[in-house]
């Protein structure tokens, strides 16, 4: 009797160790993730060209039929969003680094391998042709995990809405004007060509050309978005005296942000082996012990 119990406990311990081991952060590269596709599109924003006219902000609101945001002017005459929000998919901000300032255009970065898509439970956020990160409210439960996951704080929620009648709250973010054949309104109206639209590969080449042509003109002498967080489809150039961080672009690891959680998750639950092993071990232990317990004490009817 003792021996069989020990065996059973051993089995349980083995399953436990297996389950624990599987849940440890092993750097198994089991994950494939999204890769850059040949027809991916994106944008290039060159902060040294932007004069802060905010024509892009207005054009974005018009093309996306977004309500004006007059909260900061107490219902005054200006559409003056302070940040991206439920009414604003694109915003121009001032970025300050010490005494130097420049303009920053914020909208969805359309990451190559986006965290928001990785965390979204039923594909409300998903990739569509052109590498665009698109949103479909039909499968969105409003959990707002995308807002936690996005390193750029892009997805916004319509907090003032509630009831599922016409005005139901949604996640709001730039979708590169994919509903309109003309492409992103912001790129169309920019009078300085500070933001341009095109194929990701072409934009990257152009950005790199600019960096190469004027050494010392741009921050870090590089293009933000080429490799950051696995790469984005929107690229940024910042003047040399304003760091990317001051621009509001976080320092990201080279590997895509979802890699860690997806690897841990996939390693733990590969083919359901660990959970099934644990379940089986637990059940076997109980059935054996129950058999033994029957002569002794009567437990739980």
């Amino acid at each position, binding site marked *: 009797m003792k021996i069989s*119990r020990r065996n059973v*406990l051993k089995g*349980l311990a083995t399953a436990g160790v297996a389950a624990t081991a599987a*849940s*440890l*952060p092993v750097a198994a590269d089991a994950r494939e993730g999204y890769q850059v596709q040949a027809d991916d599109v994106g944008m290039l924003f060159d902060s040294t060209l932007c004069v802060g006219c905010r024509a892009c902000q207005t054009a974005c609101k018009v093309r996306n039929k977004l309500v004006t945001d007059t909260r900061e002017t107490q219902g005054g005459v200006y559409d003056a969003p302070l*940040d*991206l929000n439920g009414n604003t998919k694109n915003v121009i901000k001032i970025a300050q680094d010490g005494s130097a300032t420049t303009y920053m255009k914020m909208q969805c970065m359309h990451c190559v391998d986006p*965290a928001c*898509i*990785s*965390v979204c*439970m*039923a*594909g409300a956020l998903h990739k569509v042709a052109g590498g665009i990160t698109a949103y479909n409210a039909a*499968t*969105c*439960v*409003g*959990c*707002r*995990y995308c*807002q*936690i996951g996005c*390193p750029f*704080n892009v997805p916004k*929620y319509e*907090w*003032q*809405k*509630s*009831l599922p009648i016409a005005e139901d*709250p*949604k996640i709001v973010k730039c979708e590169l004007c994919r509903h309109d054949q003309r492409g992103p309104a912001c790129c169309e109206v920019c009078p300085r060509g500070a933001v341009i639209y095109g194929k990701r590969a072409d934009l990257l080449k152009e950005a790199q050309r600019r960096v190469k042509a004027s050494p010392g003109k741009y921050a870090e002498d590089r293009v933000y978005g080429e490799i950051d967080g696995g790469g984005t489809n929107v690229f940024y150039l910042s003047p040399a005296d304003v760091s990317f961080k001051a621009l*509001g672009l*976080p*320092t990201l*690891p080279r590997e895509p*942000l*979802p890699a*860690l*959680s*997806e690897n*841990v*998750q996939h390693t733990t639950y590969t083919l359901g082996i660990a*959970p099934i092993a*644990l*379940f089986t071990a*637990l*059940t076997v*232990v*109980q059935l054996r*012990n*129950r058999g033994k*317990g029957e002569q*002794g*004490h009567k*437990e*739980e*009817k």
Partner: protein
Amino acid sequence: MAAHVHERPLGGAILTPAFKFLLALCGVWVLLVLVRLVWGLNGPFGYDTLLGVSAQSDGYAWGIWKPLNVVTFTGISAGAFAIGLLTYGFNKGEYHPLVRSAVMAGAMGYTLGGTSIMIDLGRYWNLWVIFVPSWLNWNSVLLEIALCVLAYTLVLWVEVAPSILEKLQASATPATAARAKGILGGLKKVMPFVISLAILLPTMHQSSLGGLFMVAHTKTHPYWHTGWLPALFLMTCLTMGFGAVVVIENLTTIAWGKKLDQALLARVSVVPAYILVAYIVIRVADVFWRFRDPVILARFESMGSPLFYGAFFLLELVLFGVAAAMLFNRKLRENRGTLFGAGLLLLFSGALYRFDTYLVAYQPGAGWKYFPTPLEILFSITLAAIGVTVYVLFVKLFPILSGVEATTAPGGQKSAASH
């Protein structure tokens, strides 16, 4: 082995003044839910006002309802998980008297946690989509939690069912009695499988509750952001579970004068002490290991306020350490008062680790602030009150608590108002 101590219903009057007070709190919760449903998560006046229903914003998309109502409530509920693992997984039958009370508390905690999530969902009417297999994204840690928590809540109520059926078995109506007996017999046959699920499922989602923040590399302070989050959350949910068992056993004893098996509680309380030692070793080693990386160091620098974060990190470790030290000391754990204190400390330290990960360590970017509104806190308090109300009702009506003398039936004049 000693004869099995049978659980008995407490009996006694139900509508005591304390119970009426609890019911009033439940009513307040219903009102708050109505306001949220009509005017949205911030309420009619917006998130940055004193009258906001919640202070959640685009920066802090999750407020206290996640770490408190979901992660802490289910952490307390992990008493069912912890005691179940010992009693059934490791065949320590002597802990059986603790099972039913823990399972009842667990069923309530999970039901409330799940309810809170659903009310917190912006588009709750769409929740059915997580049951359409072809749409599901298995990369989402939250999806695993959602499905697993729903399944486990059901499992917990199946585990509560025998208490109700045993009562019905004694029903005056022969048909009801026979029916209850039949179902009870069937349940007994499948119980081992149910219990296995009841251990497997919390292992999965309690670890995932920590895993949620693995994706937020740059927004979670490096003291907390690690690939070990799942393992650390799993360990601390067990310590919270043991703490909850100690606390609830003591509270029910204080409230209704049932017998408390101090020796049994003292024996079981050594287990969380060992888990805490493992936890502290992993936690500290992990921080030292990761901080060798210049990228992590740079992130640590850029997130600022090293004293603020350091203080919370150390406070956690000290609380966990003190709890472990108290439980390793035989004298302290065999004393009812100090063990009760250690139990509370287990709950509090685990809750702090959860709040730290979800809110203190979370930095969405410049300019965002979060502090819960009074109504947001009231929502959590009144939600907890529902849990206490249903627990009190169930232990009075059904055989859930052990150590209840058959003669003390009309006892319950006092009830646990605070919990």
